[in-house]
């Protein structure tokens, strides 16, 4: 029995073409979605995030590539996504399709940046997608749906030992004239000893509803390094479920930074990292500022399979105007993963008396010689500190912003890129300064 929003569900099942069924991976994925349907709050990993109200509207399920944005609209979206002073290559992806015209890509034969569609038709491609993502689990049914149906996205591969001199700023831009259900799929391959930094922004044009169900497969081979930042500041009409599946090989480094600010109605980030070798370093930093009518949900999983690895998760939340947040951080340390260092912490600051935070650390440790820690705090801002700042002439709005920036500092200070750090701090300050405080 399927307990799902039936119309969209039926529509999705229907729109799944015969061609794709020919592919066994796609077929398996579709079967998983057919069986599990959309996640419901009965699933432990979706308990506090009820997707149902966000799926009830009429959506058109579109293949990437269609849509209606003219050059001027694209330019406007690029401008919206721009990060001041960020010296970066530009990868502009319009409705899931790479746009050469608007991009400014590195001219080097050590890096390949292509539309995913170009290679996804290759018969071996579907073997390349991250098989660590268990699409048969009900909790991953949206990732299954994406696997079954995606048609395009971006593909970035950097050759062994190559070091990209500047970050790549990916402008994910969408524009449709009706409510759409989108399923972009992206892939990044960092070969042995290579280093790359990717910054992603999202911009949706117009006022239609957007449900974005995206999946990214990331591979970091031995000694490789991937620094990955995602900035989420969509409009209320945007609904985002984003699954990032990372596989790291020995001696590699992966850092994920995710910043979410109002007003997307719902943001669900799944970040799963598999540590498939020893001496791996993994950093996961989140900063979310949940505002009015907004739910921001971060679910993470760090899977320690080998000894001598270190993972560090730090998620900080600021709650305003009744915004809601969920944090569920899982650390799994397998029996062989001795000498693991795995840390996790989630701290929340409340500025609203009807905000809700559900925070849950989940540590499953089967090795005995490990260092693991976790901690959760939920508290109000320090009224004494606020008064102190005000008593020196600083406006209440500025003072509040200063306290929030201070609170966020142990996340933002980790941002290696100064332009991005300033951008995040500015957006957060501006949002908090305007907030209506009820506590």
């Amino acid at each position, binding site marked *: 029995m399927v307990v799902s929003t039936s119309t969209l569900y039926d529509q999705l099942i229907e729109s799944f073409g015969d061609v794709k069924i020919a592919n066994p991976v796609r077929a398996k994925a579709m079967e998983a979605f057919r069986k599990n349907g959309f996640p419901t709050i009965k699933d432990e990993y979706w308990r506090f995030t009820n997707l149902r109200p966000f799926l009830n509207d009429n959506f058109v399920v579109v293949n990437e590539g269609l849509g209606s944005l003219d050059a001027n609209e694209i330019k406007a979206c690029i401008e919206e996504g721009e990060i001041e002073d960020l010296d970066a290559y530009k990868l502009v992806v319009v409705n899931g399709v790479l746009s050469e015209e608007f991009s400014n890509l590195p001219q080097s034969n050590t890096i390949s940046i292509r539309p995913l569609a170009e290679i996804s038709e290759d018969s071996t491609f579907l073997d390349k997608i991250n098989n660590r993502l268990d699409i048969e689990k009900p909790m991953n049914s949206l990732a299954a749906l994406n696997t079954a149906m995606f048609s395009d996205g971006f593909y970035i591969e950097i050759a062994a030992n190559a070091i990209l001199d500047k970050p790549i700023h990916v402008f994910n831009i969408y524009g449709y004239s009706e409510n759409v259900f989108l399923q972009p799929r992206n892939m990044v391959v960092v070969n042995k000893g290579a280093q790359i930094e990717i910054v992603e922004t999202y911009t949706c044009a117009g006022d239609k509803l957007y449900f974005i169900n995206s999946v990214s497969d990331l591979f970091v081979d031995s000694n490789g390094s991937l620094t990955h930042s995602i900035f989420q500041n969509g409009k209320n009409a945007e609904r985002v479920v984003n699954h990032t599946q990372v596989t790291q090989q020995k001696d590699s480094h992966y850092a994920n930074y995710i910043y979410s600010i109002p007003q997307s109605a719902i943001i669900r980030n799944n970040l799963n990292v598999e540590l498939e070798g020893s001496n791996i370093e993994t950093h996961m930093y989140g900063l979310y500022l949940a505002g009015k009518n907004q739910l921001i949900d971060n679910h993470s999983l760090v899977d320690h399979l080998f000894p001598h690895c270190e993972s560090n998760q730090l998620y900080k939340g600021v709650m305003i105007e009744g915004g809601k947040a969920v944090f569920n951080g899982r650390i799994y340390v397998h029996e062989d993963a001795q000498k693991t260092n795995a840390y996790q912490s989630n701290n929340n600051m409340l500025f609203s008396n009807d905000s809700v935070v559900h925070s849950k650390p989940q540590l499953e440790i089967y090795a005995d010689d490990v260092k693991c820690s976790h901690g959760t705090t939920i508290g109000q801002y320090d009224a004494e500190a606020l008064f102190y700042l005000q008593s020196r002439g600083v406006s209440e709005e500025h003072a509040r912003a200063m*306290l929030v920036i201070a609170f966020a500092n142990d996340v933002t200070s980790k941002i290696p890129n100064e332009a991005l750090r300033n951008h995040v701090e500015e957006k957060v300050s501006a949002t908090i300064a305007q907030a209506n405080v009820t506590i």
Partner: protein
Amino acid sequence: MLSIRNLHANVAGKEILKGINLEVGAGEVHAIMGPNGSGKSSLASVLAGREEYEVTEGEVIFNGKDLLDMAPEIRAREGVFLAFQYPVEIPGVSNINFLKTAVNDVRGHHGLPPLTPKEFLQLTREKQKLVEFDAKLVNRSLNEGFSGGEKKRNEILQLAMLEPKLSILDETDSGLDIDALRIVSAGVNKLRSKDNAFVLITHYQRLLNYIVPDFVHVLWNGKIIKTGTKELALELEEKGYDWLKQESVALDN
């Protein structure tokens, strides 16, 4: 400059200030002394605009304006400065950025453009020297991990930077070593002018040797029960407060 008339204030439903009258003119230095718990910090808090205090009666006029009507930051911008008895630590807020924001917010209030980074640096250097404030502390988080004395000196650095009209120093001398007391006092004396005024809340006559007050007031049980000149402080040093308390009780009856 400052007129406090029949000021009554409650905190947590309890009356703490019970009819304070105080006139402070430009160029004057007033000292307020009094036993622990008599309401000295409460008076300072009410003047600075601390939210927990509810004014039930009376008025405070500052340079012709109703002070009690202003938000705390407006009071500060209008020229009221309170050096706190217990300055708070604010991890993650850098001392220097905080100073810059404060200075520029105050300037903005008076229609002045923000200082250029160079001007700001110059001003900071100059004032730092005045209060002999360790340059290393300027770049740290606001008061975080500062020693008691360092916190007090930081209050005076802020005072020097903001150049207020009315400065209220709540036990700034407590926690300062002998040298620091001399340095801070010398700094305050240099900042004194015919246009600004100081209210020194203190338990110790010693401070008043360095910063000589025009008036000394004794606050007890939410009221000023005695006003005199600097000699009163010497008398208190010798005799304590009991004789004044008795006088006051006798008067009330």
